[in-house]
């Protein structure tokens, strides 16, 4: 047994350790437990006040110097536009925010819904990004670093709200395009984003996320007939900075009401936790198998030799 290659055992162990230090050991420890920043800002969108005027879309377009859209912002027919696959308009490489119109069964008045990045407390775009291109800032914004983005589009797969878009048309510098909460020019100075400021209906309130929750609950309490008793974004996927009040069930205006309450990363932690265990256990386990196999081989060879000796006698 002393003959068993200590060297091979070590080699296997070292190879495993190297693989480990290179690979995933850090990944497993790094899933942070964020509860959102205490001073994080947010926006409360009240769908009962939105009239679908697209002023917010125009303000966003101007603020971020985005290309002019095919139909001008005063053309409200686009609110009903659907693509070839029956899907409503969504954010894309030239629009950080869009408003869509929803016909409500049994009601004459349509409901409008604005969508943009919801700036999650524990964003799955951030946790899924392998170059750490996303940052959740203390102010509550989820911002993106175009300098390191490789273009794998994992964040688009991971976003439960279908928000990040990709500038597919660019060959040399395609990037993720998404609302940044007007972080650079406004949010850092404590100012509300352009869309919020531009809204003629005051459909959106900008403030500390905690205060917005209080305002939302207040509105629901004062007018329980007007609102559905739910603040969308309070708990969805761990909570979002942008939250919604609605007078109709949320699923009727394009919200996914089946989303989990836990952050998306909680689904992944099981796997991430298993990584260092495999790294630590596999080398010994498989080197053990190897030693067993070798031992048997040698025994067989020895038996064989014994037999031959026996015959020669």
């Amino acid at each position, binding site marked *: 047994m002393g003959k068993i290659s*200590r060297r091979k055992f070590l080699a296997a162990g070292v190879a495993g350790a*190297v693989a480990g230090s290179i690979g*995933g050991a850090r990944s497993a420890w790094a899933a942070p437990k964020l509860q959102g920043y205490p001073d994080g800002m947010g926006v409360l969108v009240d769908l009962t006040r939105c009239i679908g005027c697209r002023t917010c879309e125009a303000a966003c377009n101007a603020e971020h110097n985005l290309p002019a859209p095919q139909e001008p912002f005063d053309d409200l027919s686009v609110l009903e536009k659907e693509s070839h696959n029956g899907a409503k308009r969504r954010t894309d490489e030239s629009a950080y925010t869009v408003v869509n119109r929803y016909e409500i069964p049994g009601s004459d008045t349509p409901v409008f819904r604005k969508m943009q990045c919801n700036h999650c407390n524990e964003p799955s775009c951030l946790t899924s990004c392998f170059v750490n291109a996303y940052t959740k800032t203390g102010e509550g914004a989820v911002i993106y670093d175009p300098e390191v983005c490789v273009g794998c589009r994992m964040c688009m*797969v*991971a976003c439960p709200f279908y928000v990040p878009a990709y500038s*597919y048309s660019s*060959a040399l510098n395609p990037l993720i395009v998404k609302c940044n909460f007007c972080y650079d020019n406004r949010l850092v100075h404590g100012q509300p984003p352009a869309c919020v400021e531009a809204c003629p209906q005051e459909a959106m309130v900008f403030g500390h996320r905690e205060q917005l929750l209080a305002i939302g609950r207040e509105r629901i309490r004062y007018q329980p007939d007007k609102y559905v008793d739910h603040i969308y974004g309070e708990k969805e996927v761990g909570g979002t900075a942008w939250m919604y009040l609605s007078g109709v069930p949320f699923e009727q205006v394009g919200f996914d009401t089946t989303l989990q309450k836990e952050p998306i990363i909680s689904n992944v932690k099981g796997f991430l936790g298993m990584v260092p265990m495999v790294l630590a256990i596999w080398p010994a386990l498989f080197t053990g198998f190897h030693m067993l196999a070798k031992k048997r081989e040698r025994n067989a060879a020895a038996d064989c030799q014994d037999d031959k000796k026996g015959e020669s006698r």
Partner: protein
Amino acid sequence: MKRLVKNGTTPLDGPRPAPDKQPWTFKEKLLLGLSLRDYLSQAFRNPLNWVAAVILVVGLPVIVSRFIFGLGYVTHASNDYPWGLFLGFGLFCMVPLSASGFLLGTTVEVFGRHDYESIERLALLNGLLGYLFAVVYLLADLGQPWRLPYPMVVSWGPAAVLFLVGWHVATYLSVQMAEVSASFFEWVGWLAGKRFIRRIALGLTTAGIILSTLHQGALGALFTYAPGKVHPLWYSDEFQWVFFFCSSIPAGLCMVIVVSTIIKRTMGWRCDSNFLDNLDRLTIGLAKGASMGLVTYFTIKLIGLAHDNEWAYLATSWGGLYGMEMLMGVVVPIVLFAYSIRHNKVGLARFAALLTVLGIVLNRLNTALFTFNWNLYQELPHIGEIIIVVSIFTIYLLVYRFLLYRLPILYTWKEETVVEEAVVVIPSAEKPSETQSLGEVSA
């Protein structure tokens, strides 16, 4: 080539036969020891080359246009379906089918089943090329492929599963390069290199098992970032990575059966008797391994259904697709394998292996593409994507064949037979010297 061999040509498989002791030149080795004219005429006679040429004449300009005009030119540029066929097929299907390398490496090097040695090199090469071309597909898909090394050197996102996939695929690619390089060193005649690889083979193999377990699983874990988007029948919070890892085992083994079958049919001239005589027996052996993997996979898939209580979905049309995938790719192969192993029907086992491979491909496409956004809308891949996928696959096959023709994968390098035997016989004698030298080093 078949015709040439029939007419008495011996393909280059070792040093120049005596009395001429002169070594082959590199060019002669590339041309398999044929004259340039003979080589070209056999290449032109092969109808497969013409098919490949037609595919590439169409496909190469499309590949070039993808890089000149951007992804939007050859795909739907969908923001709802960020991943199309490039990753759906190229990454998610090629990687499990390339598990062969670590599986046969484990069988031979770790479990000591040296009777599988004649097929080990083929499995290693299949693994290496599969991963290499998975990366090629990835390069076609990445928005900025020139930034591929960023997760290694520029910016780390270590909490991400994709970070692990990236690092592991890169590391494992190097490990496989090293493993396959043994045959390359024989071919170029640098024996010291080959001996070195043999010495670290166990370490390489163990590293391969670890890396494979983790990144095969990680490909599944990627989808746990998109819980609502993948249809529940193909999704599990807890077990997704186990499903992917477990199914990669029959996938890798069956891929070896399928590839070796094609080789036996189309390039028997390149195989030596050691490969051909053992193949049927080894195929049954691989089939045993694959059927154990499939039974396990089937069991844990059922556990997955029960755990998340997804039985009701089976009655929907998605359930029909699921049922078809499981029946065609898992249940039928299990039955066929059982019968073929019992009655030693190698042909049937080969057919079952093909079904398994197709079943795994269907499973990965279903997870990544067909059932993705199941409650949104379904989108068929753009024709440009299909052309590029087929073209890259054609290049993969051509590279595969190029290497099989030349490197001692399917045959034993003649020069080596003497030395090779010595190495194989010695292991027990070789060990003491190794421990001794280790002792010296530590002393």
